[in-house]
């Protein structure tokens, strides 16, 4: 008897303590590895930086996936934030990097609130397509009002100052790179905490059973709106970082292909997984750079086909596969131990 109880506690310890600490360790290693990129592989720095910016935006789409909703228009907030930064730099030359970031986040928050108030009345098809419609509206505004927005050529976003200092190209790139990593860690951690918070828990109930939420006396719309705002802000931060890294903003930032890419990466990384969003973005960017030389014409076709394969055969994405492997590893470990005992 005592044997069995001991066994179950030890197994419980493995599950509650062992696995997360392994996961945390792997995450820490990955972040350190990323931070070392400028020293190990300087040629990869820009690429990784773009991937991180995209990853933060993808995290926004991932948040919504947790509520079982998919948005085909989240590039809207990505683009609004980028343009807000560009307009700020145009009216206030040599503005600070922090100011550009804040302007972007404010732009994304306000537009997220405006669009969000409308789209949280819908779920599923309407939610996805109305988001797409809003991003297309903003895209045509950018293209049509070219005397303000620069049309298809976009606007240049000159290099902002950093804490009052005007940096050279290399210095600025390093600042942006480490800022991206820091934001990835902070925002990723925050999102995980948010998922675990009461609001986050209620938010995820929208996927499983919304009606029960109303029985609790909570408003699903308000709950969805809070998650929607978080997702818009995350996309905004990603857009700001991307714009400052590239130094130019174009309507392409808002184009539906960009939104599709975000959804693709979110599903690839693992629908609803915070780490998956960044792992997906890194893998996606690296593969894209090397594959576009050979398959530039059929890139979207490959994405579409791969998306189908993931949805039909590996709905958990990369993180799902990794979890499966870990789980299998853990299982075989305990089973061998049982045999030994």
């Amino acid at each position, binding site marked *: 008897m005592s044997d069995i109880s001991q066994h179950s506690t030890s197994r419980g310890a493995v599950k509650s303590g062992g696995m997360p600490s392994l996961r945390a360790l792997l995450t820490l290693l990955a972040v350190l590895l990323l931070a070392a990129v400028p020293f190990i592989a300087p040629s990869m720095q820009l690429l990784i930086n773009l991937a991180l910016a995209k990853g933060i935006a993808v995290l926004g789409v991932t948040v919504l996936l947790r509520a079982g909703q998919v948005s085909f228009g989240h590039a809207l907030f990505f683009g609004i934030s980028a343009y807000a930064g560009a307009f700020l730099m145009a009216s206030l030359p040599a503005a600070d990097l922090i100011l550009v970031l804040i302007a972007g986040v404010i732009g994304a928050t306000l537009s997220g609130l405006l669009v969000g108030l409308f789209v949280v009345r*819908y779920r599923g*098809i309407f939610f996805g397509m109305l988001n797409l*419609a809003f991003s*297309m509206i903003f895209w045509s505004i950018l293209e049509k009002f070219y005397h303000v927005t620069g049309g298809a050529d976009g606007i240049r976003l000159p290099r902002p100052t950093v804490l009052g200092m005007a940096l050279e190209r290399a210095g600025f790139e390093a600042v942006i790179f480490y800022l991206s990593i820091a934001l990835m860690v902070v925002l990723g951690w925050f999102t995980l905490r948010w998922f675990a918070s009461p609001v986050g828990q209620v938010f995820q109930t929208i996927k499983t059973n919304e009606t029960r939420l109303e029985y609790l006396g909570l408003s699903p719309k308000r709950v969805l709106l809070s998650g929607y705002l978080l997702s818009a802000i995350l996309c905004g931060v990603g857009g700001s970082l991307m714009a400052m890294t590239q130094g130019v903003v174009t309507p392409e930032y808002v184009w539906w292909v960009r939104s599709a890419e975000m959804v693709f990466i979110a599903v690839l990384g693992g629908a609803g997984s915070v780490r998956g969003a960044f792992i997906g973005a890194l893998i996606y960017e690296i593969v894209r750079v090397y594959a576009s030389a050979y398959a530039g014409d059929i890139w979207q*076709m490959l994405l*579409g086909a791969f998306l189908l394969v993931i949805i*039909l055969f590996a709905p958990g994405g990369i993180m799902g596969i990794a979890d499966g492997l870990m789980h299998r590893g853990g299982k075989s470990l305990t089973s061998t131990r049982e045999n030994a005992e």
Partner: protein
Amino acid sequence: MNLTIFLLALFDGISYAALVFIVALGLTLIFGVMRILNVAHGSLYAIGAYATVSLTGFFLALGFAPVFAFPLMLVSAVLVGVLLGGPIEWLLLRRIYDKPEVLQLLVTFAVFMILEDVQRLVWGTQPYFRASALQALGNVTLFGVTYTVYQLILLPLVAIGLLFGLRFFLRHTVIGKLILATTEDREAAQSIGIDADRVFLFTFVVGAVLAGLGGALASPTTSILPGMGADMIVLSFAVVATAGLGQIGGAAIAALMIGLGRSFAVYVWPEVAVLVPYLIMVLVLLVRPEGLFGSPVARKI
């Protein structure tokens, strides 16, 4: 705004509404029966247009009369429906009917991404323009305004014909009644011996043919370029959402509203013309979240 401009805007709006309606009809039919929003519908529209241009180009070069362009439109539409629509339903959608709505949306979206590149691979990125069908019918002068017969008379006639044809087909033919029965309750329909799989396949092919036909009919009036599929799926969704998903008659009225709104905006305030359809949609949905003719669904607890 004088009378001539008013009439021009009116005619523009009507011909545009007719085209959008034909595409939206396919979208709303598929949704009404199968509860799936086919994002790839826009690509089927674009491919219908490309196929028509290529086919007419080929046959007119052989020395056929320009009138021959009309049957070729039908041929392209049917080709799109059977060669693309059929396999999409048969190979993909059939696997996901019991999956969550979001996954179904993602699957058709993936098909959309694939088909957008297929167009670029087959037809390249240069614009195509072939107006032989438009010229073959000549012009008509109405209240002092000269307009093409093709856009002012043929397109609205086809749209009205399809609207009433589809209503008649669904209500008064055996196959139509089978479709309605399956829509009402798939399991009950199967239990009385209806082959629901075949009904779905048939519906999807018909919807795809309508998308292709919309593209085929649009091809003489506009230049065909990459990206037209993306525009059309959003626009036809706006029509369908304004009307209420699955509402066939309502889609006609919504298409007219959106078509007229857009064409009048072109003459009054051209910069915002592209936005007008979405503004109309947002305004309607703010007041009636289910669309103009949609009814709130009873919730299952």
